[in-house]
Structure formats: C-alpha cells, structure tokens
C-alpha cells in the first residue's frame, strides 16, 4: 500500500516509536501484578489450596476410615488433652469414629456442595440476567418480578421445606441450595448487561452483521466473567454455610455422612462436657469460608478496571 506514507507521515512513525516504552500491561498482567501485592487474596488462596488438597487427597491423608465405629474408643479427647491418644489426633466422636478423618472428609462434602450449588445458581442467574438485561421489555419485567418473589420468601425455610418434600441426599441439597441462590448473579449480570448493551461496541457488532445471540455470547458475556467469578466464590461460601446450617437442623445431608454441620449437631448433645466436638468442625468451617471470602474479595479488588485514568 502506498498510502501509508501519505496517511501516516512522519508524525505517526514517531508517535509509534515514542509510545513503545509507554504501552501498558494487558488487563491480565495488571490483575496478576496486583494479586501479588494483595495479602488477603494470597492468604485466602493459600489456605484454600491446602484445604482443597486435603479434600481431594482425603482417602490417602485421613488416618482412619471416617465411617469406622469403635465403641470402645468413644468420645476420646484430642491427643494433647489428658486422656487423648496420638493415634486419634483430634479424638473421637460419640460412636468412636476418628474426628480428624471425619473433618478431612468433611472438607470434601463442603466443597462439593459449595461448588455444585454455586454452579447451578450461576447457570440460572446468569442466563436470566443476560436475557433480562439484553432483551429488556416484558421479559425484563417478568424476571424482575421473579426476583422480588424469590427475595420475599425466607430462603432457609424454603430450602428446608423443599429438602423435606423431595428427600434428603447430597444431590438434593446441592440442587435445592443452587436453585434458591441465583438472585445475586442475576441482579449483577442484569445491570451490567443493561449498561454494556448501550455501549457502542455492541452497536458496532450489530452493524457488522452479528446476530443477537452472537452479541450476547461473544460481546457481552466476556465482559461479565470477572464479576461472575467474584460472585461465584462468594456464593460458594454462602452455599457451604447453608449446607452446614441445614445439616445442623437435621435437614441436610443424611447421617452418617461426615458433614461439618451434622458433626456439630451430633456433638451438641455432649458439648458441655466435650466442647471440642462442636468447636473443631466449627473452626474448620470458619477457616474454609473465610479463605473463600478473602479470595473472592481479592479477585474483585484485583480485576476492577479503573477506566480512563
């Protein structure tokens, strides 16, 4: 092409040269750079990594079978307390099952339910949110009405009623928690879609011949991913707490599954004399949830775009 010279002229070549040094980092590089200096994110990620390893490698890491009862070794205290045994580091429960093994396996249950439920919620919420935000009109109003209805029902009561009616199992708990936790996704993706829909790159896409589906999937959705990821982490934490609560009330995963909430419920009867039965699974829950929340908050801090600055 011969016009380059006439169009660009020397002004552009020099601009190009001079800007070489100034070209900033890609959004991904910026996020990684920020993440390295974000203590909350690093701590959360570290803890989570360790706990995830325990969850995945539970069959190899747990010292005992979590379901194996040994009635001769009932209610052993942790090893460092008087009367404890080093073969049962965290003691045993009322049926003589090794508490450490149950806590390790409990991480599995918690994470499985947390991730499963948050995924189901994400599928429902993001789909509805993008539809409502992008198409607007009566669809938007219908979805909004659905949200108002969902918010108006006390969610725990609804979950309990559903689990009771359908039957207690891990799968049911995952689906029920997921099916009642999509509002946050929806609200955020809907408002983001509403905003993005009006941006000029969407108009440019339809002017170049993109279909509505192409625009929703290829132009709008990629811009929602950061926010969806943040909500996903926070919803995993919420789902884990929900499962624990549900199991504590006796409407979650069925016994003898090693769920932390269930363990607290079982330990409650003996808590005045063997408080560790309640304290230990609670600490495990707290640490897992706080790690996930730190990670979620961190991801949000790291991926915020400060445009035009």
């Amino acid at each position, binding site marked *: 092409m011969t016009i380059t010279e006439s169009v660009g002229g020397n002004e552009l070549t020099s601009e190009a040269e001079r800007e070489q040094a100034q070209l900033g980092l890609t959004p991904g590089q910026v996020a990684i750079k920020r993440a390295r200096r974000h203590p*909350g994110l690093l701590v959360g990620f570290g803890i989570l990594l360790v706990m995830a390893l325990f969850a995945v490698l539970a069959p190899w890491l747990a010292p005992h079978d979590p379901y194996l009862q040994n009635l001769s070794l009932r209610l052993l205290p942790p090893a460092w307390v008087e009367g404890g045994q080093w073969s049962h580091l965290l003691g045993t429960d009322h049926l003589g099952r090794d508490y450490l093994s149950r806590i390790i396996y409990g991480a599995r249950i918690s994470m499985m339910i947390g991730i499963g439920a948050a995924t189901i919620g994400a599928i429902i919420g993001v789909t509805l949110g993008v539809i409502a935000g992008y198409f607007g009109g009566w669809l938007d109003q219908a979805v909004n*009405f659905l949200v*108002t*209805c969902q*918010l*108006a*029902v*006390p*969610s*725990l*009561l*609804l979950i*309990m*009623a*559903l689990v*009771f*009616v*359908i039957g207690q199992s891990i799968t049911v708990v995952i689906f029920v928690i997921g099916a009642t936790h999509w509002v946050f996704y929806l609200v955020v993706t809907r408002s983001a879609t509403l905003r993005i829909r009006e941006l000029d790159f969407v108009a440019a896409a339809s002017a170049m011949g993109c279909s509505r589906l192409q625009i929703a999937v290829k132009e709008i959705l990629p811009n929602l991913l950061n926010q969806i990821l943040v909500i996903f982490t926070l919803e995993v*934490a919420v789902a884990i*707490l929900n499962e*624990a*609560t549900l199991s*504590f*009330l*006796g*409407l979650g995963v069925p016994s003898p599954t090693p769920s932390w*909430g269930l363990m*607290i419920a079982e330990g*409650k009867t003996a*808590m*005045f004399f063997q*408080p560790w039965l*309640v*304290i230990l699974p*609670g600490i495990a*829950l*707290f640490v897992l*949830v*706080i790690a996930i*929340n*730190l990670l979620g*908050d961190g991801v949000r801090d790291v991926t915020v775009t400060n445009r035009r600055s």
Partner: protein
Amino acid sequence: MINYVLRRALMALLVALTVSFGTFALFYFATDPAQTIAGEDAPQEMVDAIREQYGFDRPVSVQYVDWLGSVLQGDFGQSYFWKQPVVELIQEHAKVTIMLALLALVVTVVIALPLGISAALRPNSWVDRFALTTAVSAQAIPNFWLGLMLIILLAVTFPIFPVSGDSSWRHYVLPAFVLGTSSVPAVMRLTRTGLLDVLGSDYIRTARAKGFTGYRLILRQALRNALLPIVSVLAVQLGHKLGGSIVTESVFSMNGLGRLAVESIFNSDIPTVQSLILLFVLTFVLLTLAADLINAWLDPRIRMG
C-alpha cells in the same frame, strides 16, 4: 406520589399472591395431606374418606382459591399436628420472634452503622481495615456455631446468661446478638460504599466549594443521600430476621415462629407451614413497601418520578 404508592402496593400484593400460590402448589403436588392426617398406617379407605371430606381431591387452583378465601376471613385453617387453629399457634409464637428480630435489628444498627460511617470517613485507615476485617470474619462464622460458642462461654463456663428459653429479658441477650451480627457485614459494607460514593460525588464538591466542611458537610449534605440505600437494606434485613430466626430459635430453644416452622415441616403440618410462609412473605413485602415510601419521602426524584 399517590400513583407511586398505589403501584408499589399493587406490586406487593401480586408478589404475595404469586408466592403463596407457588408454595400451595408445591405442597399439593409433593405431599399427601390425607395420609398425614390419617397417620402412616391408616387403611386406604380411611385415607380416601379423609381426602374426600377435606376436599383434597379437587384441582389445585380450586383448593387455593378456597384456602385464600378463608385466609382473607382470618381463618388460616386447622393444624394437622397440634390439632388447633393455626391462628392461635401463630399468636402464641409471634411475640418471641418479633422481640428477637427487633432487638437483633438494634444490634445490627448499633454495630454496623457507626463502623461503616467511620470506615467511609477515613478510607484505608486502621478503622477502615478493622471494619473490613470484622465484616469478613462475621460473614464466615456460621450463625448456629456462634450461638453454641456463646452458650459454652457465657452460659456454661461463665454463667452470666441462661442457656436456653425465652422467659426473661436475659434470655434474649445472646440470641439477639447472634441474629444481629449476621446482618452486620452486609449493612456495614453498604453503609461504607454508599457513603463513600456520596462523599465522592460532584454535589458534595459543590457543597465544599460553598464552605461546608466537617460534621456539617456530613449531616446537612451527605446524610440524606447516603440513607437511601441503608433504609432499603435494613428493611430487607428485618424481613429476613422475622422469617429467618429459625436457626437462632433452634439453638437457644426459643418458642418462636421459626421453631414452629421447623417443627411443622418435620411433622408435615402443611396448613401451618403454608400460613407461616404467607405471613413471612407479607411481612417482607410490607417492610420493603415501607422502605420504598420512606425513600420516596427522602428523595424527590422517586416522589415525583
């Protein structure tokens, strides 16, 4: 303004109807009330007889309209399990829950608002960091576990408060604290970001250019704007507390609506569960309606829009 109120009220009514129909339909398709009333081992003829007698064989919409008609006349039906009118049951249990929810709201407001405001006034200071740490931790503590820990610590090890029950004001201290702290993170964060947004706005800069500074700037220029989202979130939280004291009431063995709800679920007492859900939804809808009206009063854009 009248238009606005009517619109919001109509919306609230629509929500209450939709949700109550939804739960009604859920129980209609998923349970067999005739069997429940007759008992597990009852002969089939008896179950059928009950089904016909109570009209459980009619289509769901007919039964719903029937039920709604009685509800509108103040008749919430008869509890299958406790064998007494649901209205009476609710009356017996409501006092505890209302007390608990209001006290919990006070706890939330007293902790969350000052913390959120001071964090927003000094972003990135130690107050701000403390507030954020509190929020992150409070969010991660399982509610029921916090209750148990407080019982172990303040009712057993140091017996300051009673372990369980609802007969004196001392019984309410720990549950209200537990229920109250559960809303602290949400309210605190919202207060902080809301106030930060307002303080960073153009009109606050205008007010500063007029000579406003210090507490006057906050009270006379920023407060009203910052209150708008807080009013909404407090209404939602109070609604959740009235309907969501299930866990707290269970942990502290308090005889409130939440515990009633749990027990009626375990006993398949459908009329009670249905009435409770309707009650919770109505409360929630009315509270958010009230919040909308307060906001309309605070903000001319809503009032006139």
